[in-house]
């Protein structure tokens, strides 16, 4: 099946946005590990902005960046959010409170604990009433989100934004579920070719192939340690603007293979 890519957003450790990260992803520049810097979104009313947790901030940042060049209106675009486990700090805080003598939860903590909290804030921030879903598939969450978004784009004949992100848990959960760092990525996908499209993605479920890896050790570490960063081999191919086939982790017995054709080269 085929979808067209109209925009990308990226935010990770040492990866300050899609445009800025292109040389590193293409292998023209060394990857230098640095703490994640999440741009502050002005889309939310101050009250909601204050209460927003890190997953929300990352989702808003990458989603907004992905729409910037797409010419699409986020209010009218269906959305799919994907994350292995939502906001780690919120879950840890709730678990600690519930294990303590005073079990009173903060209502804000509680609503931020739901897996679809970033989707809710995204809707409020953009006035988006289009269909929106929030998925988890453990380490395969990015691919699961891509599948849902791509299938929806084709069957409903509508553009869909995929927003995938993960943040780590504090200890003690981090010891049983280590997540390397916070990371977010967004793709605007369309079922039809428009001038704003810069790549064609022909994809299939693939029970045979192993996942592609990153050449740079620092980026490969991100790929292995952060579920949302399992998308990095796709971003690397896009950054190189070369036609290539790339395989991403999905389930233990099923991978996602994408045949990427850059369109800017063809148009230039």
């Amino acid at each position, binding site marked *: 099946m085929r979808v067209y890519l109209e925009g990308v957003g990226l935010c990770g450790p040492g990866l300050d946005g899609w445009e800025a990260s292109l040389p590193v992803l293409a292998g023209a520049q060394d990857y230098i590990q640095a703490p994640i810097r999440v741009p502050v979104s002005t889309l939310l009313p101050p009250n909601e902005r204050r209460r927003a947790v890190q997953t929300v901030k990352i989702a808003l940042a990458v989603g907004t960046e992905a729409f910037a060049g797409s010419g699409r209106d986020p209010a009218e675009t269906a959305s799919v959010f994907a994350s292995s486990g939502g906001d780690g700090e919120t879950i840890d805080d709730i678990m600690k409170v519930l294990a303590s003598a005073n079990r009173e939860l903060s209502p804000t903590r509680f609503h931020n*604990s739901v897996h679809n909290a970033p989707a*809710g804030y995204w809707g409020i921030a953009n006035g988006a009433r289009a*269909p929106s879903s929030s*998925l988890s598939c453990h380490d395969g969450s990015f691919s699961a989100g891509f599948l849902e978004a791509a*299938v929806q784009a084709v069957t409903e004949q509508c553009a869909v934004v995929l927003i995938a992100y993960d943040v780590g848990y504090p200890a003690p959960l981090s010891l*049983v*579920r280590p997540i390397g760092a916070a990371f977010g990525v967004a793709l605007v996908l369309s079922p039809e070719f428009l001038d704003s499209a810069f790549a064609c993605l022909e994809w299939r479920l693939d029970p045979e192939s192993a996942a592609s890896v990153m050449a740079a050790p620092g980026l490969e570490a991100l790929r292995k340690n952060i579920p949302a960063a399992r998308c990095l081999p796709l971003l690397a191919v896009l950054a190189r603007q070369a036609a290539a086939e790339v395989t991403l982790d999905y389930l233990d017995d099923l991978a996602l293979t994408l045949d990427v054709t850059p369109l800017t080269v063809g148009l230039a």
Partner: protein
Amino acid sequence: MMKPLAMRNFSLVTSLGAGRAASIAALRAGATGLAPCRFDFLPFFTHTGEVPGLDGDPLTGTLAGFDCRNNRLALMALEQDGFLDSVAAARSRYGASRIGVFAGTSTSGLLQTEQAYRNRDAATGNLPQNFDYDRTHNTYSVARFVRSVCGLSGPAFVVSTACAATAKVYASAARFIAAGICDAAIVGGADTLCATTLQGFFSLGVMAEEPCRPYDANRRGISIGEAAGFSLLERSGAADDADTIFFCGAGESADAYHMSSPHPEGEGARLAMDRALAAAGLEPADIDYINLHGTATLVGDSAEDHAVFSLFGDATPCSSTKGFAGHTLGASGAVEAAFCALAIQHGFMPGSPHTREIDSDLRSQYVCQGRPARIDVALSNSFGFGGSNCSLLFRRAA
């Protein structure tokens, strides 16, 4: 327009009982599964819809690593009504890789983590050695569990959109089948009682002490329940008969309004119902019964009533079944899809236990007392935190 999918089989477990027969008997009798909460030592009083038999029967063998309340309840539902046999038949018909698993949950096996935090090592603060995060707490757990129990190798994921989760999986499955990625799909999921949701809804001030009273003038909030339910969806075909229920439309929307409160005029809810009708090619007048989200909160019931009345006026009978088994949160979509299918098959419109005096501000045609009725098409509403809305349509074989 959506191509209707046959619900080749479906099963459910709630506090009303295990399986379809127990469920329709309880709906007919106006019974309730709600009882004073004895689930945990909570600093407040409430009623819950607890499923008996989940405490003493751990998962064993190859499933041992999945052991948690949520997966135990999921297995209980898979084992009802010959559901696993239907899945096995579909597997031999289509192949294991052609059947998708699209499951929903809100809190997955979070109870396991709550218990693990209470049993941390005093010196290191570490969680107990036997705690299996990946197969219990992680949000994907229930889909991975179902895929494993059923021996399937097709696409799978969990949808976690709070109380709309197990409704939205129907929409996902329909798209995957329409795209030709799957020939059949298991949809549904489970949500089980845990301190996070009990204490969380209490903190929001929306928990009733008494059994919940949807649409009542004196409604005081929700009663939380636990449940699991699954359907096997396939394309319509030779196996259809007069009893086959068809899933014929889904409508999804977002409120874009508030994280834990619905839009007061129910605009997101109306949009979801509108989109479901459009997907099914139906008009409001075609709908014989609406199973409301109706959680018995002041603002929730009022917002939904606005939305329903704006589309249907007072012409279409509707009821919330939350008084039977409570608000089963992430499982409510699957449970109420099953209730709609049972209502169509058995010609019975469920009432609303505990609702005594309908709020005069609510204008839809609310059904307090269950009654026999021919139902050809039923609409089911599920709305969740974050303004996630989903409406599903079910109809009998034409």
